[in-house]
């Protein structure tokens, strides 16, 4: 049971190292998918939107964690 719990915990931490970062990233991806499917937004614009959104989330989360830890 302990091993199964450890495997579960390992799998969770593989994808959720920072819960807020994970939630924001998923929100960006889902918003991009919604834009793509429900509006006529250009796919290239959506692709670069995902890239810029994820870069922003990464930078903001590491800087806020780093500055809070000082």
């Amino acid at each position, binding site marked *: 049971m302990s*091993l199964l719990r*450890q*495997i579960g915990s*390992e*799998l969770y*931490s*593989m*994808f*959720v*190292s*920072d819960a807020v*970062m*994970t939630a924001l*990233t*998923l929100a960006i*991806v889902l918003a*991009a*998918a919604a834009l*793509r499917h429900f509006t006529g937004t250009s*796919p*290239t614009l*959506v*692709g670069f939107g*995902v*890239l810029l959104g*994820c*870069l922003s*989330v*990464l*930078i903001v*989360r*590491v*800087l806020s*964690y*780093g*500055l809070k*830890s*000082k």
Partner: protein
Amino acid sequence: MFNAHAITAISAAFLASTVEVTEAYTIVLAVGLTRGWRSAAAGTAAGLAILAFIVVAFGPMLSRLPLTALQFPIGVLLLLFGMGWLRKAILRSAGIIPLHDESAIFEQEFAELKDGGNRERIDSGGVLAAFQSVLLEGLEVVFIVIAVGVGRGLLIPAAVGAALACILVLAIGAVVHKPLSQVPENTLKFAVGVMLTSFGVYWIGEGLGVVWPGSDFALAYIAGAFLVSGLGSVALLRRSAA
């Protein structure tokens, strides 16, 4: 013969496997020195067998699905996984969280395992410690091999890349017989994080019908953007600490 996808997939599997096998090797070494090498080998073999089973069972099954059905979900998982590694590597490079110290982990594990057990025969505690270590560290490698390998027929090259890293680390370990503290784990983690996030964004885009300008070259400029952002974040955090 190899395009940007193949090179990135094989490199990511090789580098990630180097990081994870180095971490697992530290525990297996502690088990070998305290509870005997037969226990260490038995636990390692059992862990590797389960990991190989997962790759053999799920890899070909997923490979049969159409690429379009895989791109979006696997892209999302790769993005989340890669951003996690990149975040940790940035914070470690900036000195916000401590670097992974194989020597300290070895000392701790050695101290926990040295009392009790039996070196003369297979020791269940030692087998379990080696098994858990190989299985838990290997899960990440298995995910990377399957995620970057399926869909483009790269499962075998990615698995070979991971296996080569495993052989390389174990061969070095067999010679030096001490924790591999010299392996630049954080630099490797940084590189793998950049590769996997790039794969993730690229695949999510393709899954949403994006035709990336530059085709496969898009992987290079997406990776460049994550690399510059990561290094820039490290520089900013270091400057704010000074």
